[in-house]
């Protein structure tokens, strides 16, 4: 129900007069308030702090504690007020929800106490307004993770029936689970380090024999280095194959980043084995050796921080892209300017604009190698402007990246972004359900035949009470308004399912247009209009006086089946 704007319902109903001249059918009778109370103030005493509000304000949400008759349990006869032994600070938010229709989450409040209060007063947390929802969800997630961590510490024991494969995978992913895993972890780490150091030392010039020039160590001790390389690659291959065997989903494992790094690390060795020492391909062979340095990335399995850094760079892609783009723009501008400024000077190194790129980059990043310097006055002026602007352009996106990193570091240690997406979708679905709840409520009440004009003709008070229990006055007025619209346009509201059904039916056969007849035939067509379920339907009641006996007869049979 549009409870937040309940105060405007009289206006909406008055404006319905605009439909009257257009309608061809007579309108249904309006619901009347049987006991029209004067709007009165009620006092809510929450642990000593007194809140006062109109009774109508609380009645806006009849499915909560304060809006329904449940609050009568808390009525204190002597002091004529409702006493709740709860937290008065949180109650402020609860009461504001009734007043404004928006639920806010105060930041200083503990998340579990807030949830408890909401549960007590029968309010769903999903309707927290967008302004406070992020905060609420973050706190809730932290709380849930804290609980999960406490549980995890307790249940870190090995689960009884895990297959050998699952044990292996678990050992690979969490080295702390068993000693074997820890040993494996350290051994692989050691060999990665050895491999990287080998690659580095290979190129160092190592003592020269007197006749020839200095040779790098790699060429001097070829065999030793080859053996070391082979050993490392053996270990890595074995590790990769074991991981491949143990992975729960081999296809997904093979596509993951870490496995690609593994493959890239060991492949050059095998390719080198296959290829002979051919002159033509030796150039490519040398390039392949470069890929051996990728072994250093294998360390990222061992270091959480490295993984986070990689993730940050990936998520800051837009800032990095902006940095790159603005730098490129500035480089091109300044290179062009420098080229034309330096065109006049003799023996200028600025032979073309691309040649000036190098100068511009070196100057903007404040490196200043000095291999290219401007000689003209104009060139010097622009060169200084270039270096000043370089400092600025580089300094601007850096704080953004830094703040991104710290945010992600705190947030991304455990939770995935994908989990948040799923929860967001669920929340939106729930809000949508509660919003369509108002239209569903109307359809529901239509189907069950709760119309107040039946009350006009019967004067039995018990039936009155039974019917009054299910819908509040506000709801019945809202439903009357929607009913008037139906009469004006001579079409009815139906739910999505039935609409799909009737749409298909209309497509299959030429549906004859029904004239809006008020005869008793409506009784028969009335059953067709609503959903074909096993429940009893009531026909659309006619407001015209002579037919009042008919709805009376129909609704009388439904009193027994009236839902609570």
């Amino acid at each position, binding site marked *: 129900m*549009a409870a*937040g*704007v*309940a*105060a*405007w319902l*009289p*206006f*909406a*109903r*008055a*404006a*319905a*007069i*605009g*439909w*009257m*001249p*257009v*309608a*061809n059918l*007579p*309108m249904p*009778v*309006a619901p009347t308030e049987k006991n029209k109370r004067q709007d009165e103030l009620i006092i809510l005493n929450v642990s000593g702090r007194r809140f006062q509000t109109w009774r109508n304000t609380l009645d806006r949400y009849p499915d909560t504690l304060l809006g329904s008759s449940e609050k009568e349990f808390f009525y204190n006869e002597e002091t004529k007020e409702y006493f709740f032994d709860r937290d008065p600070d949180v109650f402020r938010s609860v009461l504001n929800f009734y*007043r*404004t229709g928006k639920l806010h989450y105060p930041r200083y409040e503990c998340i579990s106490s807030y949830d408890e209060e909401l549960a007590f007063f029968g309010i769903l947390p999903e309707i927290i307004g967008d302004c406070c929802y992020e905060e609420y969800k973050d706190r809730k997630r932290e709380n849930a993770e804290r609980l999960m961590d406490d549980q995890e510490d307790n249940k870190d024991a090995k689960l009884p029936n895990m297959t050998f494969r699952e044990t292996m995978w678990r050992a690979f992913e969490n080295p702390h689970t068993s000693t074997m895993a820890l040993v494996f972890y350290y051994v692989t780490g050691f060999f990665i380090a050895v491999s990287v150091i080998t690659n580095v030392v290979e190129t160092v010039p190592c003592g020269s024999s007197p006749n020839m020039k200095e040779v790098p160590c790699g060429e001097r001790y070829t065999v030793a280095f080859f053996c070391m390389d082979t050993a490392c690659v053996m270990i890595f291959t074995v590790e990769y194959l074991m991981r491949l065997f143990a992975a729960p989903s081999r296809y997904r494992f093979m596509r993951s980043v870490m496995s690609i790094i593994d493959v890239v690390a060991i492949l050059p060795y095998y390719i080198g084995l296959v290829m002979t020492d051919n002159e033509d391909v030796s150039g490519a062979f040398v390039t392949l050796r470069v890929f051996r340095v990728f072994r250093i990335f294998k360390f990222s399995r061992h270091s959480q921080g490295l993984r986070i850094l990689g993730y940050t760079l990936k998520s800051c892609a837009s800032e990095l892209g902006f940095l790159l783009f603005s730098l490129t723009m500035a480089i091109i501008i300044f290179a062009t*300017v420098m080229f*034309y*400024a*330096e*065109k*006049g*000077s003799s023996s200028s190194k600025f032979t073309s604009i691309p040649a000036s790129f190098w100068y511009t980059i070196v100057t903007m990043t404040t490196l200043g190698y000095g291999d290219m310097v401007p000689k*003209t*006055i*104009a*060139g010097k*002026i*622009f060169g200084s402007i270039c270096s000043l602007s370089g400092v600025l352009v580089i300094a601007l996106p850096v704080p953004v990246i830094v703040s991104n990193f710290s945010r992600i570091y705190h947030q991304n240690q455990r939770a995935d972004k994908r989990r948040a997406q799923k929860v967001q979708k669920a929340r939106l679905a729930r809000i949508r359900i509660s*919003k*369509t709840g*108002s*239209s569903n409520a109307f359809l529901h009440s239509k189907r069950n035949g709760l119309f107040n004009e039946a009350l006009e003709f019967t004067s039995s008070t018990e039936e009155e009470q039974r019917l009054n229990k299910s819908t509040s006055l506000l709801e019945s007025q809202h439903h009357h*308004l*929607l009913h008037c*619209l*139906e009469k004006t*346009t001579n*079409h*009815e*509201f*139906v*739910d*999505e399912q*039935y*609409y799909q059904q*009737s749409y298909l039916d209309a497509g299959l056969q030429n*549906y004859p*247009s029904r004239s809006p007849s008020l005869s008793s035939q409506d009784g028969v067509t009335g059953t067709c209009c609503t959903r074909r379920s096993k429940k009893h339907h009531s026909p659309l009641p006619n407001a015209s006086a002579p037919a009042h006996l008919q709805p009376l007869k129909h609704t009388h049979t439904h009193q027994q089946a009236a839902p609570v």
Partner: protein
Amino acid sequence: MLSAIWETEGLQTVGIVVLVFASIKLLHLLGLISFSEDSVEDELELSAVRHRPEGLEQLEAQTRFSRKELQILYRGFKNECPSGVVNEETFKDIYAQFFPQGDASTYAHFLFNAFDTDHNGSVSFEDFVMGLSILLRGTIQEKLNWAFNLYDINKDGYITKEEMLDIMKAIYDMMGKCTYPVLKEETPRQHVEVFFQKMDKNKDGVVTIDEFIDCCQNDENIMRSMHLFENVL
């Protein structure tokens, strides 16, 4: 010799660049060009005024509501619009909450124009209460007058078929998609035809206020439904 020429050219480049920047700065100072888009918004902010309605006694005299009723009305009004005036967007939002299945924005637009009698783009509490006074407590004549005013979009005293079609489409839009029977394209048009057949006595293609009032007073259904909402407040 050549180098001297190029060197002066370099200085000339500097001179030209400096001149261009200076002229841009001068134009900016003069306010002829603006670099940021926000300056326009600042102006609008100043004009968002708080409206206070006339006193309770005056409103009581001008409308047919009692003091208590005016109090209740104002409380609801001010709750939704703390600044005291409703603009069209807020109006559309509020009205749309009563019709969750369809799109009430077009009809709300027409309603807004009907309530905004002085056409200043906002509905103050006085406009609101005057309108409600006519709708809830007015004579049949006044109510029919108000309805005619609503249908007559350009307020020229005649309802044409196009105006009626717009209104009809707006009403049918509020029903939404899921209706029974399924809404067809020509349903509003047919409804307009029926309406004109009934109302347009001299068949000149427009409905005047007299034709409208005459015809409505002779129609029993319409007369009865005019009394429908009298106990709303």
